[in-house]
């Protein structure tokens, strides 16, 4: 019933746009439910359950783009904004180099939804509160812990997309995640330790079964104890070391130094004024050594559980899997229907995504993972003579060409003569993107390969937030500058 009504409204909108002079139009009507639960120091500090309805209509008229959105689903508003989008497109056409050219895509009429075992919105709020308060109790068993915080977050997004090409896609995406942090204070210092990751935890396209799999309670004591131990740990030494990165930090490394540089809109200068450009200019398609020969980076929007996993992107392009770096060599960008032809491709890779109903789709990083190597984790440590192991991202910064980066992590450990040694606090490292990836000499195997979700990737103006996962297993990078002061 719902789908029928939404389809009727969607078709009305794109018909109006055509009547106003659009040569192409699409509309996304989106209904979003979001729930978050947050605890801090034994108290429930936030429980919210929000709903949002709205539509965004995108048109090409006189060869250029226009877009308008509203939360008002009244048919009169839909008509008004369809006409508005066409007027905007016509204004855009006054500063145009060549008309928008969309890569062809098969027409589809289909429904897709995230596989989900336990609907997170069906799990009682009190069960979620209890889980976080159980963890909170364990975290605050040591007096140095000045803040124990935990959060759970769930989103269900139902979207109906129609295009003048004739496609109609009904899609439901479900995302679940959470985590907790112990903040310790003492010794004139403060330190955070988080599980399973910083910045709100780990997230997946999944239901509540993902929260159950994280087993928060079993990890609370170790997280607390590491936060307290960091207060008296030595500061990460300054120097050049062999660096082993664990999952969450390696995920951010992939995100910032491979993901963003390969967004084709960025490469073509569409983000230049704000986030910047990319050193990965298009002539590098002819041959560029991105990393060492063991580095294989694969984009995959079909990956089960990936935050960027979907049936179709917001161009209506079906999910795909492809190598962006194969045996160290650069192979392909992230594209959409508009820019695919700029690199000689005849079909979009399906990377155009929008944040809710109110934004225009832009090229986003899809799920992007480092394929596993053949090292056992224990063997990798044993093989490292003078190294440092860093875990859990805390801070990141990278230049506007995505070359010079600096990352900070929550914790690190010395590796001497094949053995893990003392703990270090305030670890960080710095490098230049291709030099860094070329220095990768070992990647752990499938046993330690897992998905890490980035649920807060900001891009664009107006700013949009997108989600994607970066699967990896720990990897070693040779002779990296650490302990930057």
């Amino acid at each position, binding site marked *: 019933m719902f789908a029928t009504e939404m389809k009727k409204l969607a078709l009305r909108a794109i018909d109006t746009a055509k009547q106003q002079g659009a040569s192409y139009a699409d509309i996304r009507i989106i209904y979003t439910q979001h729930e978050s639960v947050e605890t801090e120091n034994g108290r429930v500090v936030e*429980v919210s359950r929000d709903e*949002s309805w709205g539509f965004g209509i995108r048109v090409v008229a006189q060869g250029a783009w226009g877009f308008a959105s509203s939360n008002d689903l009244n048919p009169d508003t839909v008509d008004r904004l369809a006409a508005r989008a066409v007027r905007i497109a016509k204004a855009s056409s006054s500063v145009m180099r060549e008309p928008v050219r969309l890569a062809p895509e098969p027409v589809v009429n289909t429904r897709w939804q995230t596989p989900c075992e336990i609907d997170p919105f069906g799990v009682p709020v009190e069960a979620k*509160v209890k889980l976080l308060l159980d963890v909170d109790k364990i975290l605050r068993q040591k007096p140095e812990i*000045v803040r124990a915080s935990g959060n759970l977050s769930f989103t269900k997004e139902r979207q109906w997309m129609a295009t003048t090409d004739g496609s109609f896609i009904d899609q439901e995406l479900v995302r679940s995640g959470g985590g907790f942090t112990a*903040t310790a204070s003492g010794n004139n210092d403060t330190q955070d330790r988080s599980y399973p990751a910083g910045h709100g935890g780990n997230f997946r396209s999944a239901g509540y079964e993902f929260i159950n799999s994280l087993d928060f309670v079993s990890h609370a004591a170790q997280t607390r104890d590491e936060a307290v131990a960091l207060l008296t740990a030595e500061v990460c030494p300054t120097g050049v070391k062999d660096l082993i990165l664990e999952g969450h930090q390696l995920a951010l490394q992939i995100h910032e130094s491979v993901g963003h540089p390969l967004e084709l809109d960025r490469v*073509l200068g569409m983000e230049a004024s704000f986030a910047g450009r990319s*050193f990965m200019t298009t002539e590098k398609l002819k041959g560029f050594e991105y990393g060492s020969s063991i580095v294989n980076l694969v984009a995959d929007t079909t990956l089960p559980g990936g935050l960027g996993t979907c049936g179709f992107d917001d161009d209506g392009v079906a999910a795909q899997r492809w190598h962006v770096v194969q045996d160290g060599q650069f192979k392909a960008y992230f594209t959409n229907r508009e820019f695919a032809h700029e690199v000689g491709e005849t079909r979009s890779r399906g990377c155009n995504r929008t944040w809710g109903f109110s934004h225009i789709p832009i090229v986003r990083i899809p799920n992007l993972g480092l394929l596993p190597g053949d090292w056992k984790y224990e063997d990798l440590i044993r093989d490292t003579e003078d190294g440092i192991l860093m875990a859990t991202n805390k801070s990141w*910064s990278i*230049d506007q060409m995505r070359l010079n980066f600096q990352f900070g992590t929550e914790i690190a450990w010395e590796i001497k003569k094949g053995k893990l040694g003392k703990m270090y606090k305030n670890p960080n490292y710095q490098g230049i993107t291709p030099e860094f990836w070329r220095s990768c000499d070992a990647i752990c195997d499938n046993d330690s390969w897992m998905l890490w979700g980035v649920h807060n990737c900001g891009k664009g103006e107006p700013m949009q937030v997108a989600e994607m996962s970066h699967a990896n297993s720990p990897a070693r990078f040779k002779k990296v500058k650490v302990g930057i002061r």
Partner: protein
Amino acid sequence: MMTKNDLLKAAQDILAASPFKETEISVTAAESALTRYGDSKITQNVNQEKTSVSLRGIVRTAKGARTARVETDQLDSKSVNRAYERLSKILDVIPDADEVAGLHPAGDRYAVPVHQSHDVAEPELAAAAVQIASKATKENGFQSSGTFSSDRQIQVYANSTGLRLANEISDSEFACTIEGKGGAGRGFSNQANAKELKVEASVSRALEKCVFSASGLESVAPGNYDVVLEPAALAELLVFFGWIGLSAKGYLEDRVFCKGKLGEKIFNERVTLFDDPLNPEIGGSYFDGQGVAKHKVTFVQNGILKELANDLKTAAKLKRGPTGHGIEEPNASDPIPWNIGLEWDGDKAANTGELVSRVKRGILVTQFHYTNLVDVMIPSLTGMTRNGTFLIEDGKVTKPIRNMRFTQSMTEFFNNLEAISRDHERVSTFFGGASLSPSALVRGFHFSSGTEF
């Protein structure tokens, strides 16, 4: 778009429908237009309309109190009642808390100013501005990118103590980055009314800097340098420092560098740091998410830590007044300032050029990019230069240099500050926030590495 009176009426009706004795609501109606250009053509052109309502209820019990919040973007009575039902279900099952922020009472002590708001720009006006940038760069073989944006927002806050606040603001910005032949420059203009944006001047400024920086880049070794920071660069550091260093919640939890130092000297006695959100050039909201009217707050006066960014909860704990930095309750977030400004009780130059003339050998920085935290307890920051970085020799800007990464203690930064300019600019910063910022001369600023461009 709904009018302020429409929104006030809607807020009154929504409040009247509340099943709770203690309720607060925020209703927002906003329209924004943003034209984005890159590679000297319009790449995105959007118009967004949005109305939303956020509802919070408080239930008192024998053991304490419960509070929660829900949101919807549909203002009809059926949707609002559904939202209240969701809120009731949450409040039925969450445990009692011994600490819940109450409602800010009616009778706020600060006056709320009224500025005229303006409609968002028509797309043809934005396109004309982009044409100016595009034409200027085409003639020189460069590429331009940026935005022409305008927005108008009406916010209404109401709670069951009788407090009613309404706010209507508009803002617009033209930003232009010009790049090519190894050079880069940026110009920008902010106005409440998009029709008053200084488009030509912004393009000229970006172009001038790009032409100069395209004259052959040299690398400079990392190390400590005297720097002249233009307003955009200084604003980035000021606003980021405010986020990591001045939260009262962080102070209460010993998570800030200045813990335990309220009333003590923390910086050079010539440094004063303030937040003045009501300055018409800043153009922000007049009240915070808890219904507290904003006002000018001085955090550091002549080097002494005088105040922190407080919300209702932290203000009660510190036995101080709220400072207008609260976000909607309930939340676990830090109250933080978004508009840190710098006053200087010392030597002032007329402008950036005069500051440059006082440097024997140093670096002129146009802008910082992607600034982020290194160590919160020092506190130290890192980030990259962009859009024009130049060597200063014998008081003159002599040559463009490749971009560099800084890693800098902010305590040392304020202590090594030597002079600022009398002129200033309104700057929007990378992660949000804005500052009315002068240029500054700082001795011994630390650059930790370089990059390839």
